[in-house]
């Protein structure tokens, strides 16, 4: 389980996270929605210990991430996989070397075994026989799928997805969504997906959270978010240009409707 309590993070005067509280139980697929630049990726980076919080804490199975030393943090990270927005594949390596890097580093495998596991993971993301290609030879969708194969190479308990469908055409985006869903079901992974793509969120999420002004504004099921009366949630879901999300007046000043929560 991941428990985020009162998480705050600012960059200079810019407050990005202003007391985020969120609990993610094992096996769930949670989607964190929010506008671009709203702190979603920052939240993910706190979960995996890439950033240090100004206040508050993130606990993974009772272990406080911010309190770990570098060695213990590295051990904890072996239980995580992360798919980056632009895939973040290592340009200097082949696809096979990218996917197998963590296996070579942390596992006791022979080269032939690593190659076998890498091929198996690449088949899971439906990209067989591309181990010897370079990332520069791949399309955007293929790069994301290789990134996904790399994220699940060590069979992690948790996978974090940072904008998995951004920059992809609708068909490729849906292929990624299907993969995320399939992998979660096949490997029983706890998934945290950060996105602003509503269609993707509805497909992959058991639970939706909306991050707004550094706080969780909504937390509930995909059905509940569609039925929400909160003008902030409604504007985001409908993608309207006008509304509290884009107004200069702080919508947090207005009374929020009672949370629908998970039913």
């Amino acid at each position, binding site marked *: 389980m991941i428990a985020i309590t009162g998480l705050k993070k600012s960059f200079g005067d810019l407050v990005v996270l202003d007391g985020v509280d969120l609990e993610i139980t094992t096996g769930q697929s949670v989607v964190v929605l929010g506008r671009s630049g709203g702190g979603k990726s920052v939240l993910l980076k706190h979960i995996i*210990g890439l950033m240090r919080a100004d206040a508050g804490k993130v606990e993974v199975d009772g272990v406080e991430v911010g309190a770990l030393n570098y060695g213990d943090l590295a*051990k904890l990270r072996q239980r995580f996989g992360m798919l*980056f927005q632009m895939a*973040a594949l*290592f340009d200097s390596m082949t696809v096979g070397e990218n996917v197998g*890097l963590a296996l070579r*580093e942390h596992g006791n495998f022979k080269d032939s075994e690593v190659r076998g596991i890498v091929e198996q993971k690449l088949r899971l993301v439906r990209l067989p026989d591309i181990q010897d290609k370079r990332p520069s030879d791949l399309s955007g969708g293929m790069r994301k799928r290789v990134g996904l194969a790399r994220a699940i190479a060590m069979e992690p308990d948790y996978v974090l997805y940072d904008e998995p469908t951004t920059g992809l055409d609708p068909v490729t985006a849906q292929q990624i969504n299907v993969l995320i869903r399939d992998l979660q079901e096949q490997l029983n992974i706890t998934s945290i997906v950060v996105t602003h793509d509503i269609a993707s969120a509805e497909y992959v999420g058991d639970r939706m959270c909306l991050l707004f002004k550094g706080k969780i504004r909504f937390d509930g099921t995909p059905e509940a978010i569609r039925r929400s009366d909160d003008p902030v949630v409604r504007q985001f879901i409908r993608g309207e240009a006008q509304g509290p999300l884009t107004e200069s007046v702080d919508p947090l000043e207005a009374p929020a409707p009672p949370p629908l929560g998970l039913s």
Partner: protein
Amino acid sequence: MAAPLALTGGKLIEIAAGAGRFALFLTALAREFPAGLRYHRLFFEQCHQIGLASMPLVIFTSLFVGGVAALQSAYQFQGYIPLIYVGTVISKSVFIELGPVLTALVVGGRVGAALAAEIGTMRVTEQIDALETLAIRPIRYLVVPRFAAAFFMLPMLTVFANTIAVLGGMFVAVNRVGLSSVTFTRGMKILFDVNDIYGGLIKSFVFGMIIALAGCYFGFQTRGGAEGVGVSTKRAVVASCVMILVADYFLAEVIFRLLFGSA
């Protein structure tokens, strides 16, 4: 009155913060150094990049450095000093100063820029974050092999540079100044001290460290996108060139005054 003070204070804080970041970087490198040496393949790849791939540039520049040194010294000596001393001046100046320093400056420009651009691009495309999420320590994996390769390859390049520069000097002395090769070689033997070669090579070890540190440090500090990579690259080249010349003075004091006591 307050504005200039604030500006000066701000600059001082910036400098202190930069010094602190560099000290932390050095500490991390020292801590990771022994463990990072196990990445043999990366070390040899970097030896190729830093050493072998720099060879044509070093040979070409050294040839002209030796040539111009012969031409200039013959011009200066004419009518005052016997031309046999052209060989003496070439060997002394090349082994002590021109070989190590000019090799470091040429390689510093090439390699310092390449290291900063490569690591900087990895930083802005989240590849360094990806390494962290795979529980791989970026300093250990990226910096140690590059640092070790630069440390060992600079002296090797300097040996080649010294040889080529002397041969270039001899070629010009024979063909343009009118000395015989025997006279040139006899001139080289006058005042020859093997410590000149050792001293120059000791300097080149230090220059190798400076080049790797500047390239890797500024690469790691990269922020933003392409512009940030450009800024880091420029800073790495400027810093390595300036530090090589500053270090050259202090090394001359230590090596040739204190250690060998001949200056």
